[in-house]
């Protein structure tokens, strides 16, 4: 069992979390001009690095999407960050 840290809830069991996407992908736009190839690349292709990575995860029980920095080899989590803009 591993603990992940939700920026809202704090530490929770990994089973409460769902991987969403690698962070830093930019959706190709405008939609009407995006080729099927480019769209497929955006949807299905990942860098899948060996080592340090930045990913978007969902804490499913509370509904928080957040950025997690972790290592794909050691599984060590080095940071969890809210994706919220700072409060105005």
């Amino acid at each position, binding site marked *: 069992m591993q603990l992940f840290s939700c920026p*809202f*809830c704090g*530490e*929770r*069991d990994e089973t409460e979390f769902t991987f969403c996407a690698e962070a830093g992908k930019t959706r190709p736009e405008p939609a009407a001009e995006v080729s099927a190839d480019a769209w497929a690349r955006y949807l299905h292709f990942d860098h899948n690095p060996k080592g340090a990575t930045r990913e978007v995860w969902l804490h499913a*029980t*509370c*509904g928080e999407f957040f950025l997690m920095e972790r290592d794909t080899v050691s599984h060590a989590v080095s940071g969890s960050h809210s994706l919220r803009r700072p409060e105005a």
Partner: protein
Amino acid sequence: MRKTMRDRGLFWSPAPDWTTARIDGDAYSVRRVLGLGQALVSGDLDAALAELMPAAPEISLWSVAAAEPFAVRIGRDRTLLVSPGPLAAAPGWRNGYVATPCDDAYAILEISGVALREIVAEGTSVDINAGSRSAAVLFAGVTVLLYRIGPETARLHVEAPLAAYLWAWLEGRS
């Protein structure tokens, strides 16, 4: 009539008669609490509480709620208002929030007794002593809201269709 589909209804544990159902286990008992009002709120929670339930305390994981009304925190923008009876909240967005009456959407199971901590330890891996702003946790594999109304009495709010499953789980451990 010819059967064209398997009746999955027979696969699931039958729902007990909630008005009388009771589990009397070793050092704990369980019943379903009926008649409370519940409303899901999304958006600006401060504005919603000020308008719908001023002075109602916010309840987080494992914290103790004295009496209804109170607001059980689900997530950053979500809370569940719990009131002594159905809450009159008009549906739709206003003042930055939306409140949706959902009195029957969640079943409320109340577990009482000295075995409470043991049951919680079996059901969830969360560290209840560490505290957490959200009362939502995975319990016996399903998402519930978990808080207490006394030192040895806890409540689980679970989506109503999952109540019979959770009941069978609680019954099975006795």
